[in-house]
């Protein structure tokens, strides 16, 4: 994941320049963090804009003691989960079919039967395994990058990923 060349120099830049850099370089990555969680494009658009506003408000307070994208990622995930709680009036369970129905109703999703089976299988995974999957497939991240982002060791991530693949295979075939 791209980071500013020199964090100290970046931190000294005027705040609007920092914001412009973040928007240009991370909008797309943040969108693909958000979209698999909130499913529809309309939701993802709302959450991305909320995330950017939150980043703008809190950037002057950010001390750059962690990687910039790690900080942005945590904001995006929190905003996505808060959005689901607020707009769907309940804590969405990992295997909640209502989220799959939401995805089917989205005009910006054209998945076939197999894709939906895969979605349902992914939704049944424990949160940690889901997270590794989302980051690997929607953000094309490597294990060491995911490790920096989530604070989980590479070994643990690989184990989670391996279990996730086994479960998905089982769930897709048994359906």
């Amino acid at each position, binding site marked *: 994941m791209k980071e500013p060349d020199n964090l100290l120099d970046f931190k000294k830049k005027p705040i*609007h320049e920092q*914001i412009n850099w973040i*928007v*240009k370089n991370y909008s797309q990555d943040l969108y693909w963090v958000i979209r698999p969680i909130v499913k529809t*494009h309309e939701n993802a658009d709302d959450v991305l804009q909320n995330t950017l506003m939150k980043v*703008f408000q809190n950037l002057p307070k950010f001390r750059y003691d962690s990687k910039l994208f790690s900080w942005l990622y945590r904001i995006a995930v929190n905003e996505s989960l808060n959005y689901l709680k607020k707009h769907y009036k309940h804590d969405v369970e990992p295997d909640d079919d209502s989220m799959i129905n939401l995805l089917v109703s989205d005009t910006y*999703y*054209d998945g076939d039967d197999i894709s939906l089976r895969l979605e349902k299988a992914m939704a049944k995974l424990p949160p940690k395994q889901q997270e590794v999957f989302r980051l690997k*497939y929607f953000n094309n991240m490597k294990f060491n990058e995911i490790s920096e982002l989530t604070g989980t060791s590479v070994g643990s991530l690989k184990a989670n990923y391996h279990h996730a693949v086994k479960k*998905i295979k089982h769930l897709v075939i048994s359906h």
Partner: protein
Amino acid sequence: MKEKTDIEKLLEQQKSHYKVPEGYFDEIIAKYTQDNATGKPRKTKVFRIGHRWMVAAGLLLFFSIAFHKWFKPYGHTPAHPGKPAEHHDALLEGISDDEIIDYLMDYTDAVDMME
């Protein structure tokens, strides 16, 4: 190993089913980097709050000057008609009662003579 690759392929296909409107990210970038295009720095919250305080302080100063100019509290104007008795006392300060009585006697004598 082959099975894992199949799942990975399936996942890759699944990812491609998620669509994004054309030009969406360009719109987001244009919308959230506007200040850069105009060259105007974004106003900070501190400045906005500071500005409000300056306006409030200015209004307070204006009304305090206006109050003292137009509604001067009673007693600040010397020899104002109808001023309270304590101001007469202030004017007579340092003059003894006998001196005042002598002055009044001379005054009445002078009036009597004129009559």
